[in-house]
């Protein structure tokens, strides 16, 4: 039998995700790819090698088994994970023996967890990528009974962890002005950078809706601007006045006015904000956004150097505590550094 990860049980929204399909905007296909790109980079740092394709798990994971021994890494939103019943640390790489049961439960904070395998998933590519882009009709969700092909692994370390900063509970999002910012009244632009928002229940791979504390947002004279290109991070305002941050699987063009654009470095924070999380926006200049972009790329480039050996330290088994002893206490807090 070929090398595979067997999916015995699957949460409702499991898909393979990579860096998506750049280059097809002219044909109406948005790039797509992982909601939390930083989590992809963290998986690559933990396993060594290039950023590849991971299993993206929205909200909850599933029950998995390896057809033969393989290395795995767990990144993104911390989820309750066990290996044959023993708690597994998140933001870490582990060895998954053949036949062992890897159970990944609900996220304890954040929204999207990622399961990486040494050698990477090796399912057929569509237009050059394994990413499912469901709104575009490309690929399909990963469901129970699936055997996901896994590529050959050159091998490497396991029992490694990667301390990450908390991006799983909302926070401040830096935004720049975009195409249609000037259409919005000055009062709204100012208020947008000052008030707090709550992440609505409505969120998926296309976008994340935010409910303002105060009055809704909108453009005088209706909503008919000529359809224009959309970039992930664009904040669209539809008829109900609530800002909607457009994400990986957004459409390529849209006719609703857009108030601002979240910078790429802060998109993982948007993706990972769970329902009910508080978010706010801070206007920054384009120059400041470019500095932030440079810092973000540097942070990604330095990830491999931040990987540490995993020792049997009590601090490394927080899930044991949260499982058995403490309720209302997020094991994700242990990953704040």
């Amino acid at each position, binding site marked *: 039998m070929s090398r595979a990860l067997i999916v015995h049980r699957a949460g409702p929204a499991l898909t393979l995700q990579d860096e998506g399909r*750049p*280059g*097809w*905007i*002219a*044909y*109406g*296909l948005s790039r797509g790819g992982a909601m939390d790109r930083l989590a992809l980079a963290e998986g690559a740092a933990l396993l060594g090698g290039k950023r590849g394709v991971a299993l993206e798990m929205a909200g909850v994971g599933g029950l998995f088994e390896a057809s033969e021994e393989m290395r795995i890494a767990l990144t993104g939103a911390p989820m309750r994970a066990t290996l044959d019943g023993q708690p597994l640390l998140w933001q870490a790489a582990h060895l998954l023996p053949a036949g062992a049961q890897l159970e990944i439960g609900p996220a304890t904070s954040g929204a999207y967890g990622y399961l990486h395998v040494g050698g990477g998933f090796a399912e057929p590519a*569509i*237009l050059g990528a394994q990413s499912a882009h469901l709104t*575009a*009709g*490309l690929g399909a969700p990963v469901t129970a009974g699936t055997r996901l092909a896994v590529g050959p692994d050159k091998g490497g370390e396991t029992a490694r962890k990667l301390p990450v900063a908390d991006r799983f509970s909302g926070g401040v999002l830096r935004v*720049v*002005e*975009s*195409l249609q910012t000037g259409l919005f009244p000055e009062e709204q632009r100012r208020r947008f950078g000052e008030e707090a928002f709550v992440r609505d229940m409505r969120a998926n791979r296309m976008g994340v809706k935010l409910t303002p504390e105060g009055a809704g947002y909108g453009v005088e004279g209706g909503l008919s*601007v*000529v*359809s*224009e*290109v959309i*970039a*992930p*991070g*664009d904040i669209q305002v539809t008829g109900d006045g609530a800002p909607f941050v457009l994400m990986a699987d957004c*459409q*390529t*063009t849209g006719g609703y006015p857009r108030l601002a*654009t979240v*910078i*790429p470095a802060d998109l993982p924070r948007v993706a990972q904000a769970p329902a009910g999380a508080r978010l706010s926006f801070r206007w920054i200049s*384009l120059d400041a*956004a*470019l500095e932030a*972009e*440079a810092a973000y*790329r540097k942070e990604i480039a330095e990830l491999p150097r931040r990987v540490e050996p995993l020792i049997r330290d009590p601090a490394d088994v927080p899930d044991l505590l949260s499982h058995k002893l403490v309720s209302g206490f997020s094991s994700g807090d242990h990953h704040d550094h």
Partner: protein
Amino acid sequence: MALDAAGFPVIRTVGVDGMLVSFGDRLSETANRAALAFRAEVEREGWDGVEESASSLVSCYLRFDPLYLRHAALEAKLRELIDSRDWMQAALPQGRRLHRIPTVYGGTLAPQFGEAAAAAGLSEAAARDSLSRTRVRVTALGFAPGQPYLGELPECWDIPRQQALTPRVPIGALVLAIRQFVLFTVQAQTGWRHVGQTAVRLVRLGEERPFLLAPGDEVEFPAVSEEVFARMQDDAEGGASWEALA
């Protein structure tokens, strides 16, 4: 070139890594032609640091690496290209195709044809003749991958969208409003009127050209009978054919 009263073309940023050159603030034949011609020239230039370009209804979009190619440097290149000619008079780019996509107008396959003809003030025969003979341009693709907006139809077809939405039109549905067609690649809800039905496959994943239509291509929708349509459904091309435009 002399900028018109509204100040077009304008250059604006899109997020942190995009720039947009717009030739108008509403759809027109000239603005769309300018956008197509300008984008073809951007592709031909192949500037280092530009990662992708696309044309939309009235604009050319560039995605670039802003740490490699600074905004000011790209803007200067774009200004120079803008100033090099009158884009509103530019010819359409080379390498485009003319597609012929046989279409059934009216009947049970396209139930809103009669209503649309009445809204245009035409008899059904005259409406079928008008839509069959008009050659339209792919002004943009969007909403779903490979799905074209096509225009511009004769003035009589400046009919509004419906008040109520049609809950579902099938793949291959040709719908019409405000002097434009959309040819659906997915089943969808729409406020546009379902005037024709085609059997064409616009999305061909795995083939060298995965999307049949490209921005700037031209399309004719000649009328065929339901009998001919039934036979075309077994054809891999759905009866459609194309030739290179000179």
